[in-house]
């Protein structure tokens, strides 16, 4: 039996070791099995960690027994424990799904590489989430980013190469900005441990280099999180990546970046610096509103389902940062619970889009005429997921938007509450575009010949979709974890 005290590090080490193992084994079936095992282990460990955090408070793990701040510390509180569960849940569902999806979307000789990189991406994302060391965070960020560039480029479509290249350029600029920010903080404090930086900032908290670090970190992390207008890499990357990759990245990668932003804002710089000395709240608020409106409208005009979903993701990131910009308990709870709810919903939607790719070979909307007749379960699933994006009561999307509206009213900003509702109306319009094509157009020769997608794809997608409805009907579990996370963040430096 594994000593549970070592779970924080095993969470990262297991997928990291599985990646070269898969490359050595080389078989696509064995690679898949190892990737699934690593993901399931990750999920189990993350749930154990969340329960431990809720029972005993913050977990601090010293890598190699070198005590912080000299050694690298993994520090897990309610906020990142919740992120870990989202990460584990999505990874454990997408990994089984990948088997059938990858067979049609990735050239056969690259299957084992796909699974190896899947494990690397998971290790990187997990590492970003657990680490309490600023430079370690950058290294894990690059591990997950480099893995995801390759994962995107593995698709058969040549446009995936361009999308991966574009993501590589912008992602590297973002990561370099983060290193500059971390470097400036290091110059001012002489330490890299996040908690230690927070305590040592003390008097220099509002000196110019620290404020410059805040600016660099904000821009860099926003690039990785695809916060409008730094989202240019996202639509191409999600639209052309293999569907399993789109599902994994849409549900986790941008969310982890938002978590990093929260960590720096609330646990390192502190709310007074970020929201009082610097107008970050107003900046985030303005960008969030533009994202919610403009990206939703852009989603409406897409001719490809995956691209439509990708633009919708940009809009939904806007909701999350909107919650952050209020810097209140309600707003932060709403933002964090939306992070989870949207991750689950969008993951399910990309997996269903992948089911359409499996049968139709494309996600172009004009080729989906009458698709609901031949693939009723897939299409019904997309409609349910779409209702989640809109935020219809009974779906998880409703719970988080309810909290965001509450937070807006609490802050006395009725206009913003109205914008949240208005952008949900635009979501109705873009979801309707799929409904109109799939349900109300006469089936073409192509679509009428299709069969329903295989259970190997529908069951994993169904699990995520069921979760998105379940957490809409019984929100106490996610809301409890999210408000715990919000409290932990608002408590300031740990």
């Amino acid at each position, binding site marked *: 039996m594994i000593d549970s005290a070592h779970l924080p590090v095993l969470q990262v080490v297991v997928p990291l070791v599985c990646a070269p193992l898969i490359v050595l084994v080389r078989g696509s079936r064995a690679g898949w099995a190892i990737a699934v095992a690593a993901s399931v282990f990750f999920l189990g460990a993350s749930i154990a960690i969340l329960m431990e955090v809720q029972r005993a408070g913050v977990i601090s793990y010293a890598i190699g027994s070198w005590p912080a701040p000299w050694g690298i510390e993994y520090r897990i509180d309610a906020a990142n424990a919740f992120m870990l569960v989202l990460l584990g849940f999505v990874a454990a569902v997408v990994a089984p799904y990948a088997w059938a999806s990858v067979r049609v979307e990735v050239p056969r000789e690259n299957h084992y590489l796909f699974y190896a990189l899947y494990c690397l991406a998971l290790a990187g994302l997990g590492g970003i989430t657990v680490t309490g060391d600023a430079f370690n965070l950058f290294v894990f960020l690059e591990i997950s980013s480099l893995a995801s560039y390759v994962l995107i480029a593995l698709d058969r479509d040549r446009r995936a*190469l361009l999308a991966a*290249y574009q993501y590589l350029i912008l992602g*590297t600029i973002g990561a370099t900005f983060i290193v500059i920010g971390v470097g400036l903080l290091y*110059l001012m404090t002489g330490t890299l441990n996040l908690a230690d930086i927070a305590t040592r900032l003390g008097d220099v908290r509002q000196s110019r280099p620290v404020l410059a670090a805040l600016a660099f970190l904000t821009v860099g992390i926003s690039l990785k999180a695809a916060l409008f207008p730094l989202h240019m890499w996202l639509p191409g990357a999600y639209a052309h990546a293999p569907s399993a990759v789109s599902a994994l990245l849409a549900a986790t990668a941008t969310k982890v970046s938002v978590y990093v932003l929260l960590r720096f804002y609330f646990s390192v710089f502190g709310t007074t610096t970020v929201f009082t000395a610097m107008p970050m709240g107003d900046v985030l608020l303005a960008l969030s509103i533009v994202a919610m409106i403009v990206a939703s409208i852009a989603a409406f005009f897409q001719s490809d389902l995956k691209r439509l979903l990708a633009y919708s993701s940009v809009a939904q990131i806007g909701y999350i940062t909107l919650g952050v910009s209020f810097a209140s308990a309600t707003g932060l709870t709403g933002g964090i619970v939306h992070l989870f709810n949207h991750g689950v919903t969008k993951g399910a939607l990309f997996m269903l889009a992948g089911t359409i790719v499996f049968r139709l070979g494309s996600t172009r909307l004009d080729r989906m005429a009458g698709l609901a007749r031949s693939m009723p379960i897939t299409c019904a699933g997309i409609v349910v997921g779409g209702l989640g994006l809109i935020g219809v009561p009974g779906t998880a999307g409703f719970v988080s938007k309810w909290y965001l509206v509450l937070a807006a009213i609490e802050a006395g900003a009725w206009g913003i509450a109205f914008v949240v509702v208005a952008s949900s109306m635009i979501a109705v319009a873009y979801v309707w575009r799929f409904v109109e094509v799939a349900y109300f157009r006469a089936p073409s020769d192509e679509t009428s010949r299709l069969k329903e997608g295989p259970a190997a794809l529908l069951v994993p997608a169904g699990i995520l979709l069921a979760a998105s409805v379940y957490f809409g009907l019984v929100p106490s579990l996610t809301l409890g974890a999210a408000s715990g996370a919000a409290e932990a963040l608002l408590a300031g430096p740990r």
Partner: protein
Amino acid sequence: MSALGHFSYWVTIFLLVAGLFIVIARGNLVKKLIGLSIFQTSVYLLYIAPGKLIGGTAPIVGTGITVYSNPLPHVLILTAIVVGIATLALGLALVVRIRESYGSVEEDEILRAEEAALRDEAT
């Protein structure tokens, strides 16, 4: 004095801006990567220069030595260099694959080929 004293910062900022400019202004995919590398290199300098103290030695305890340079930035940047090389290698590998499938490494030509492909698909 102050301007000269901050010499390493001036170089850092020059490299940073020059690198970013190349990434944005050049249409050639390989040149973009070169710009990206210059951009990343500027950060190496940002870390390493402040770690050096004038008259400081390597941090090994010895008699008569009181001033040591900080070794940690070097170690950090060693890691960053490895990451930078991995990124550059991956970027160049992508450019090779792009060249194989599009027959060009010029952004505008690739976009034109892409638009033409979209038109064919629509008709």
